[in-house]
């Protein structure tokens, strides 16, 4: 399939063009931009006062739970895409089966909702 490889060759060419843009921009920046580092200039910004701590603060655990939920639903869409491509040929049976699959996942989402996981507090 020459077409198949050709289209990916084009994608590769776009990637090369993007890389070239980045390379040109960074080189130009290095050549033209001034570079006068001072200790006070190199501190991180905290509204003008001296920063406190290393800047790697602890954050809410809730973000982590959303990460979990995302993985579940993203994997679900991995199943959905191939199914969506072929389900017309399989007819009603395929729709029912996907309904059951989505139903189980939706039950999980409802459980998370009931447990107040989705509530930001």
């Amino acid at each position, binding site marked *: 399939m020459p077409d198949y490889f050709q289209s990916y060759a084009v994608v590769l060419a776009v990637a090369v063009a993007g890389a070239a843009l*980045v390379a040109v921009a960074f080189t130009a920046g290095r050549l033209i931009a001034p570079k006068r580092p001072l200790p006070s200039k190199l501190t991180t910004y*905290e509204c003008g006062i001296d920063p406190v701590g290393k800047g790697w603060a602890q954050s809410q655990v809730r973000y982590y739970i959303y990460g979990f939920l995302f993985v579940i639903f993203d994997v679900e869409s991995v199943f959905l895409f191939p199914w969506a491509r072929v389900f017309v040929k399989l007819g009603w049976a*395929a729709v029912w089966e996907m309904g059951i699959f*989505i139903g189980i996942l939706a039950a999980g989402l409802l459980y998370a*909702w009931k447990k107040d996981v989705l509530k*930001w507090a």
Partner: protein
Amino acid sequence: MDLLDWVLLVARVVIVFFALLIVVMVLIWFERKVVADMQTRVGPMRAGPRGVLITLADGVKLFFKEGITPTNADRPVYAIAPILAMFPAFLAFAVIPFGTHVHVFGRDVPFQLADINIGILWVLAMASPNVYGIVLAGWSSGSNYPLLGSVRSSAQMISYEVGMGLSLVAVLMYSGHLSMTAIVDQQAGVFHLLGLGWLPFPRWNFVPQFPAFVVYLICSLAETNRPPFDLAEAETELVAGFHTEYSGIKFAMFYLGEYVNTVTVAAIAVTLFLGGWRGPAYPAVIHWFWPLLWFLLKLVLVMYVYVLIRATLPRMRYDRLMSFGWKVLIPFGLVWVLATGAVVVLPEVYGRRAVLVGAAAILGTVLLVSSLPALFTAGKKEQVRS
């Protein structure tokens, strides 16, 4: 393939790449002008006629600015993050068909970089690495505000990515193709709204898939961190969010990446929902020009909607944003996928299918629109109680 083919291929890539950069420049100017107009200002006026070169001037200025890497920063990651934020946006654009084809040197050159047969999946795959750019930028800065901004936006972007994926699945089910060219072809011709003979309309996916279109528009705003979902860089709370510590070229990369991303998601909306380069009229001169013009007009229209939303809505509260994503968009997306499935496999009896599709679209739209106020009012009671 001989030499001429390769030359044409490289020329195509280079031309489209620069055209994309120019479109991005003009659209940034367009956005600033429209926002200025809505705030009764004149907006940029100095650089070029009516300020159209303002983006170029800003870009050149950024080249002459010192790039500062804070001592706290994780240097390699700090340098890679802006590249990661910009790079995938260009790659996603590679699959968008923006015209038919032009006949040069005895070859048919398509107005599309690559017709990959997994089009929609490619778009989704290239939409996700953007999150890495933002998370790594915030984390590697070694500063508090960028970290908070990046953690926020990562949760926001992954949540809305699920909704976006579900709306794209619905389009895929309705059209039956993954390739972008095939989806544009599927939208050719005319159909009759609600099966009524006197109500013809172009067979564009946004009519039967209107709920999916709305979901896609909302999710694309959240995915590109555009107002009113720009919580990653909420200046009233987080200075400038994930790019607080960035300056010079690296900041320019974030800025460029954000706008290339916006153009790409708008182009995807045009291709999947608004019939791509198809339009009602093609005059018989310069055959390749009219499809391109239609595509650009639709792109500007979608961008205009984005800008209107930016200019009229205040920034969302974070808890409302997240609860809207998980409690409205995702359950609705799941229901809509099943509804689309049912509508598509119902036996094709003349007239019936159109009525069914229309009824589903209207019901879905009513359901979705009636849940939109949640975005602005959710959690109000609790606020009063505390």
